[in-house]
């Protein structure tokens, strides 16, 4: 895989995780389930790929982690969005919207090139 592909995928994963956490803390499995559900299985992401992204974002300070006991007495790591993470997500959304707007203008314009 080329480096740019990896960056793109990582970036997409980051946005996915951040968005998933806007509804509240979740563990890695829950995030994977959510991704699978909302795209009705259209997007199959390798679930394991979430974890490097989760750990990197934790070190960057975009998400925070907390250990809880699951109902089956298992140690489970729950992640939650931080202020920095919220801000990062908002920036992503804004730049995406700008891109979409620009593309829209290009695709619907009636002006001819000279």
């Amino acid at each position: 895989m080329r480096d740019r592909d990896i960056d793109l995928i990582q970036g997409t994963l980051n946005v996915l995780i951040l968005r998933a956490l806007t509804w509240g803390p979740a563990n890695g499995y829950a995030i994977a389930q959510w991704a699978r559900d909302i795209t009705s299985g259209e997007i199959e992401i390798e679930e394991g790929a979430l974890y490097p992204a989760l750990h990197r974002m934790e070190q960057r300070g975009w998400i925070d982690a907390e250990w809880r006991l699951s109902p089956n007495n298992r140690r489970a790591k729950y992640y939650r969005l931080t202020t920095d993470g919220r801000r990062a997500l908002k920036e992503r959304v804004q730049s995406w919207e700008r891109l979409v707007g620009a593309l829209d203008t290009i695709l619907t314009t009636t002006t001819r090139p000279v």
Partner: protein
Amino acid sequence: MPHEPRWRRYLRFHWTNATADLNDEMHDHMQSAVESLVAGGMSLDDARREARRRFGDVDRVRNEVARIDSTGARTASRTLWLEHLRQDLIYGWRQLSRAPSFAAVAAVAIALGVGLNVTIFSLLNGLLLRPLPGVNDDGLRRVYVNHHSPLDWSGLSWIREHSTLVESMVGERMTAMPVDIDGAPERVVAAFATRGFFQTLRVRMALGRAFDVDDRQRGENVVVLGNAMWRTRFNADSGVVGRTMRIADQRFTIVGVAGEDFRSSVFGWAPSFWVPLASVSAVTGSSVDDFGGSLYAIARLRSGASDAAVTAELATLASRRAAADTTRRGQFTLRLDHVRGVNAEIRTPLALASGFLLTMVVLVLLIACGNVANMQLARGAARRVEMGVRLALGASQTRLVRQLLTESLVLALVGGALGVAAAFGIVAAITRALPVLPEVSLSFSPDWTVFAYAGLLCVASTLLFGLIPALRATSPSLTGFLRETSSGRHRARARNTLVGGQVALCVLLLGVTALLTQSFVRSRAVDPGIVAAGVMDLQLDLGAKRSAADGRATYARAAEALRAVPGVRDVAFAELAPLSGSNMEMRVVPDGMTITDPSAVPKTYFNVVGGSYFSTMGIRVVRGRDFGASDMPSSNAVVVVNETAARRWWPGVDPLGKRLRFGGPDGDVLEVVGVARDAKYNSYGEDATSFVYLPLNQRYQSQMIAQVRVAPGTTVARALIQAVRSADPSLAPPTIKPLSDEIALALLPARIGAGLAGAFGAVALLLAASGIYGVISYMVAGRAREIGIRTALGATRSAIVGLVLRDGLRSVVFGTLIGLGLAIGVAVVLSHTLYGVAASSPALLLGAPGALLSIALLACWLPARRAANVDPTIAMRAE
């Protein structure tokens, strides 16, 4: 959500078990997946398989996450470490500002120690470590004959011709030349340079070009100006190329000006201009082949050639040369050396002396650190409670020690900065006080080497005075300390040991000071064998063009004119002034000596003298006669020898009438007509050495010093110069100097050494005394209660004083004995090199310990007296 500082978040990474956490997280994911699939109707095995498929490569994920975690932990600990350092620096600064008197005293002590060290190091750096200015020194090496001697031209050209590993080789020789720039004749110190000089050194030219004259090609009289001369004498005229100037009465064309950075190929030299070696016959009259013998040579090695390979090749060339050339004086060795700092012949004695000085200032620094360490120990005792509490709350000892060390580092840096500033001031003052000679260029201004050295000293000092007190203050055995009073036994022992050590070092330093001073004083008292007071030296240069007959006549006219000046008692001529640092040596074969081994031919120093030399200089002729009017070129060639020569070469026999060959087995035959009293020729401390005098009228030299004895109290400088010029108006006005000034230069190193040692000794004494005072005061303060009880029980004041003194002086006496032992050891070593030094000298055995003990007594007595005057009731309540 309150903003958590990142570094605190990292703490969680640092202390957890990352591997176990990762395993748990993966396990939780898998189990959750399996559970939910099973709940959806799948079988357990199918569910497991499907969960694994959806997850992906577990091991790869695990490895990648582990890598991310450890990188994060590393960054975290680095960040943590930096954060700790920042905190510690602030904490240290705050602690020090809360104890300003301690900080001030400690900073001053460190400033003294570091300042002295940086001063000496700056001087050494300027002399020994700096590269040649303005020269690309990549692959450049000096070449010496027989360890540190310069080459002669035939040797240099032989190597140039026959070496394959030496890409190019050049030589430089500085000498005074008569020039005429503005119409007035003058003497300027300039240099001859061999072919390819500027090109080999890759000197950047400011104007014009470098010359490229074959060394044997006569007639090309060109000159390259030095940048300084171009600025001062030619007003930095950009049209100077093509102009001419007169050198030794010939026209020389200026072809270029050297770049601003360049001085010379010899470190410390700064000749005013360069002429090709080929012009040496035009300027001095001698040919290239028998030119002096002292070209300072530099070689540029072929790229890739190693020093070892070149040295081997030079050794081969040297032996080939010795075999091929039978007039050579036996074997000689060629040596490669680097191009930093002064020449090898100066470097060795300089390096020895500087090693000595550096050791002394390091001792001073150790004493200063001992002072601060003692103060830190006392402070540490006071902070025991704080440290004990922090240790009990879980702080690691390492962390606390780091914190205390950082505090010590702040102190060391503050003191070090003060010391460095003082050092720069002292070095600048020394530079200004040095005699200014235009042909010498030395710079002692600080460069990054000096700053690095200062930084190193600060760090070393921190460890020296900070580590043990820090360890002491944070040692884990708490419970006793929380209850202990400040009269703890083993802490007192540490402090007393420190004081003892300081005293030992101080006695050592004082002892060395005493020895150096004694050596200097004794040197001054040595009879130099001449009467220097009242003799004025005039440097005459008759130029190369004159015939010997004309030159002799000129000297005779000058002597007559000089004698006619009122106040003049006697006139003499000499090629060299005594004790001036220059000497000439020649091989001799005395009558009756059979030479079997060419390398064992005896050598002697000599001088060419004229006029009434011996009476002018106050040297008695004990046998035979002085030179006189009868000694002309046509008559018998004669020589006067000194007593040591007579004793060595013709023991027990009258030397008058004996002959010797001057210059070697084939040299000129000279007959001994007189024996002169021994004198000092090269240095005050030299051993008896043979010396011969040759008459000027039989060995004409174009450059002589007129040595004129004048009556005391007469100022005749201008009249003397006039007299010389009247003998020949075309001569440049001679430089005039009293002989005693020149001789004083011979004593300069001894004087400087004694002066510096005195300064170090004084500083060491000051530091040691303040250290002792501090420790005794502290000890007295700690025993206030005990003293109060004793006084209340009827002890007299003198008994109290005696008690304190006894305790305090015990370590001082011990240290004095050790220091004395060390000083005696040093004296034994020095007695072989320095004049007038003996291990049994009373100045050493009594002076140094005496000085220290009296100061120590004073330092102890003041607090002791205070202790005795303490009101017992107050003392007992204070604890």
